[in-house]
């Protein structure tokens, strides 16, 4: 990419690099090269200096060599021909008496990533495997993995593979672990390195020598091993016991993962391991760094699926700190919901109530929906809190409460009386679309019990012309229809007006079609309409919170200690379900390409688009946020 002033800089640097006076002064030469690297890291294209830099490579100064290699590795793929010139210097360096120089040369040789150079690299790599210095062997071993990656289809020589297997016995633990890594990559097609009894025992015995990265790696690979006898199994377990309570969360998690996989048909052992690990896990939850805390809480959520009672007495550990980021608070609340029992329910609800007024609206709404989930088991207490929150008259709180009440009523129909009473007057505070949609749904379904329902709807119908949200209009139509069925006298007139507006004036086809559908339905007679519109009001089968059957450990053991638990989707996304219960969630197609994600920056990234069952695909969703922008008051500027 051209850079203003860049060409000038490059020319100047070239002049300096080829100046014999500079070349003869090592310090000046090194400083010039430093300048090149600095310019490079500032984003200037200095690939034009490639040939000058290749010359600078031939030096005894290690610092200079390192600098040049940084340069060469960045630009080699752009200059495959010139890179051939480097190979000679690099090969010569591989014979250097200084092991540091040898390892440096070997590493950079493999980092050039040029398939054309493979034939020149193989010989020094083979020699590197037998080098006296461990640091050279480390590099050489991984070098083979890199070569394999350049040509994934070509076979690596069987002799090399054998040599790598034998290097598992290398005295240097890093060489050993690198061998594991290299073999895993090279033998990927065959399912990775063959784990047999002698290898397993050798690795286990040397586990203590490795650093934490090596330990995690070894423990991960050993998951594939199946002990041949019960005695062997117990030997392994007792050997690993000290790692289970390791102060390093990654090692602890990897050990637990190994425990779970090798004892998968001995549930008692798995359970004992889970109990033993709960201490270190809780410690990780309180660790100083928030990311680690987050990872730990996410993994605890997995554990709780199988052993819901495991951390019951420690529920206070999951109370949120004031300054914690919202994502941790959200997860902790989800854990708290799981931990509720008769003894602690009062404490937990009290704590959650405190979060409802959090400055971060996301946290507040998550807290409210957590209370709603607890409400499935302890409905009276929770409804009392939720109704109390309505009194605050804060729009985001009211919105979350109404949505939560809607979700609660769907699973616990016995709450409906309290909910109907509480709803009175909320419509004035509600601002956002989801909240108003929830209110409309409740008004439609429980209209006969809410005395003011027709008046609330009437206000909205009068304002429908200025209503921007499609979802609200759709929900309003359905709610008015439902209300008409139970309170025809009060609703008939406004329903007529609404249908007239939607059919005659509305420009959005979805709304119009929906209105036409209802209009024609009404022509079929009131009984038919009732049949269609008044379906189920609740679904208690979705179940209560407590006494849910514990899921087997094997269900989640595979994804323990990986990335999966941390991604939102892995956890039951119930707190996420913000649409009407009858509405399905529609997952827009995940972007397959990184560059795609660069272009479509929706204002509400991450939130799923929701689509009404009866609606045709929304044009808004496809356009990539245009409609949402219109909503924010933007209009397109015509040229």
């Amino acid at each position: 990419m051209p850079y203003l002033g860049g060409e000038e800089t490059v020319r100047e640097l070239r002049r300096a690099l080829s100046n014999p006076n500079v070349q003869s002064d090592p310090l000046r030469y090194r400083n010039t090269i430093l300048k090149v690297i600095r310019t490079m890291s500032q984003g200037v294209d200095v690939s034009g200096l490639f040939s000058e830099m290749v010359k600078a490579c031939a030096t005894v100064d290690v610092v200079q060599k390192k600098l040049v290699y940084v340069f060469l590795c960045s630009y080699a793929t752009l200059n495959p021909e010139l890179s051939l010139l480097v190979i000679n210097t690099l090969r010569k360096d591989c014979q250097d008496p200084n092991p540091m120089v040898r390892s440096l040369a070997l590493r950079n040789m493999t980092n050039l990533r040029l398939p054309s150079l493979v034939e020149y690299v193989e010989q020094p790599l083979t020699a590197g495997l037998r080098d006296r210095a461990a640091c050279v062997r480390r590099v050489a071993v991984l070098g083979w993995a890199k070569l394999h990656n350049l040509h994934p289809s070509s076979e690596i020589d069987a002799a090399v593979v054998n040599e790598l297997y034998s290097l598992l016995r290398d005295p240097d633990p890093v060489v050993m672990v690198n061998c594991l890594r290299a073999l895993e990559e090279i033998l990927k097609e065959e399912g990775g390195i063959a784990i047999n009894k002698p290898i397993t025992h050798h690795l286990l015995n040397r586990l203590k020598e490795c650093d934490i990265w090596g330990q995690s790696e070894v423990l991960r690979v050993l998951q594939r091993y199946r002990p041949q006898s019960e005695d062997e199994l117990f030997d392994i377990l007792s050997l690993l016991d000290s790692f289970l309570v390791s102060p390093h969360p990654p090692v602890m998690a990897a050990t637990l993962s190994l425990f779970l996989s090798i004892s998968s048909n001995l549930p008692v052992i798995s359970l004992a391991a889970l109990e033993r690990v709960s201490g270190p896990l809780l410690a990780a939850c309180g660790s100083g760094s928030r990311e680690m805390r987050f990872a730990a809480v996410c993994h605890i959520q997995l554990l709780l699926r199988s052993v819901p009672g495991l951390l019951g007495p420690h529920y206070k550990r999951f109370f949120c700190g004031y300054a914690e980021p919202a994502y941790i608070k959200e997860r902790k609340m989800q854990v708290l919901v799981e931990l509720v029992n008769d003894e602690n329910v009062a404490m937990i609800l009290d704590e959650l109530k405190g979060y409802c007024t959090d400055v971060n609206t996301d946290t507040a709404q998550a807290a409210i929906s957590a209370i709603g989930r607890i409400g499935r088991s302890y409905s009276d207490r929770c409804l009392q809190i939720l109704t109390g929150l309505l009194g605050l008259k804060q729009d985001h709180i009211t919105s979350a409460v109404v949505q939560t009440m809607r979700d609660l009523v769907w699973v616990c129909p016995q709450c409906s009386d309290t909910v109907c009473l509480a709803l009175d007057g909320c419509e004035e505070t509600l601002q956002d679309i989801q909240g108003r949609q929830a209110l409309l749904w409740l008004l439609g379904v429980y209209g006969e019990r809410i005395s003011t329902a027709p008046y609330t709807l009437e206000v909205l119908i009068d304002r429908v012309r200025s209503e921007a949200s499609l979802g609200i209009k759709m929900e309003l139509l359905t709610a008015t229809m439902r209300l008409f069925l139970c309170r025809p006298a009060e609703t008939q007139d406004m329903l007529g007006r609404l249908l007239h507006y939607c059919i005659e004036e509305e420009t959005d086809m979805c709304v119009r079609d929906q209105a036409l559908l209802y209009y024609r339905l009404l022509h079929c007679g009131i009984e038919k309409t009732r049949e269609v519109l008044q379906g189920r009001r609740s679904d208690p089968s979705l179940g209560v919170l407590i006494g849910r059957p514990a899921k087997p450990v094997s269900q989640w053991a595979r994804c323990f200690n990986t990335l999966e638990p941390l991604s939102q989707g892995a956890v039951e996304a119930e707190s996420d379900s913000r649409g009407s219960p009858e509405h399905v969630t529609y997952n827009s197609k995940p972007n397959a390409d990184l560059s795609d994600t660069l272009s479509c920056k929706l204002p509400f990234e991450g939130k799923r688009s929701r689509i009404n069952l009866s609606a045709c695909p929304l044009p808004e969703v496809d356009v990539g946020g245009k409609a949402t922008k219109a909503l924010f008051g933007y209009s397109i500027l015509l040229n």
Partner: protein
Amino acid sequence: MIGGLFIYNHKGEVLISRVYRDDIGRNAVDAFRVNVIHARQQVRSPVTNIARTSFFHVKRSNIWLAAVTKQNVNAAMVFEFLYKMCDVMTAYFGKISEENIKNNFVLIYELLDEILDFGYPQNSETGALKTFITQQGIKGQTKEEQSQITSQVTGQIGWRREGIKYRRNELFLDVLESVNLLMSPQGQVLSAHVSGRVVMKSYLSGMPECKFGMNDKIVIDKQGKGGASDDAGKSDLGGGSGKQSIAIDDCTFHQCVRLSKFDSERSISFIPPDGEYELMRYRTTKDIILPFRVIPLVREVGRTKLEVKVVIKSNFKPSLLAQKIEVRIPTPLNTSGVQVICMKGKAKYKASENAIVWKIKRMAGMKESQISAEIELLPTNDKKKWARPPISMNFEVPFAPSGLKVRYLKVFESKLNYSDHDVIKWVRYIGRSGIYETRC
């Protein structure tokens, strides 16, 4: 295993980028910047998944460290590694700050080379690393060096860097105005002015040359009648009156605007900074559209009672909606009780502020609304008459009260192959109340 490591500053500029594995493409650096650092909402999670690539990040002061991977790796380990990386860097050069990272980039590249090989952590102990690392950490630096580096980074244009690339070229223009008014009880405008800002958010690739046009009276008059009326009609997106051009009293520009061109031809051309910035500020005093008229009526009934009636009239197109309307009617200090009746919205007497606050959420144009209040006063010995502070008002309207209209914003980028038509442009007008007072 880790596919790459990136270090960004708080603006999202890449300070260090090291890719270890081929499955991490060059666009990964930008993906993280766009989706996380420049995201509009708060960070939702320390792990972000973008197109099957996972980005793990930690933040140290205002530096972002991100590890990228395509594999389903052990999350705790990656975080542990990032902490370790921070520890090592701290051990070498002290606090992790933008300045320190820029000064020590050679050292950091060297460290990254030793700590990770092919994405596998190798050697992370500071003590052990010492034998492999040739560089010394630089903990501070002189002013001279600093300025030298900045001039190198910036070249000629200090506010924009090279090589910015967006898949979709898009720009947002916000015309934000605050309208100030002082009106006499009889409805005469005593003073009125609008101070406005044009804020631009640009997401444009390369080094685009932009030209901004508005209905500035001088330019319109110069161009001649025909073209002007056509233009103004086309871009009539908001606003109440059919005014075609406005007289700008004074204006100032962002440093990117070429002032010489503005002085000679009154055209506003510039190379915009990336992201959000304020393009210009201006002030107008003539022909201001006053979004609201306030008509007060105060009657003193005896010594212990006041009757106040206030009518507000909205004066813009009926299709537009004003928001967050708040009328503040001051009450005397010796008020003992207030009864309020209002047609719309909510009104409350706030004793602590000595005022009746009347709030209306929304109000369409060409409407009127009224409030009447009975104020009971405590009898006082004080002979001094109540000073009657003015009635003030707050609101937000979706048009520019000065009448300013954006006529065009043309984007020219000769080096990259996108044209003016490919750029998606958005305009929004927001008029807010400044000091908007009516005497009573």
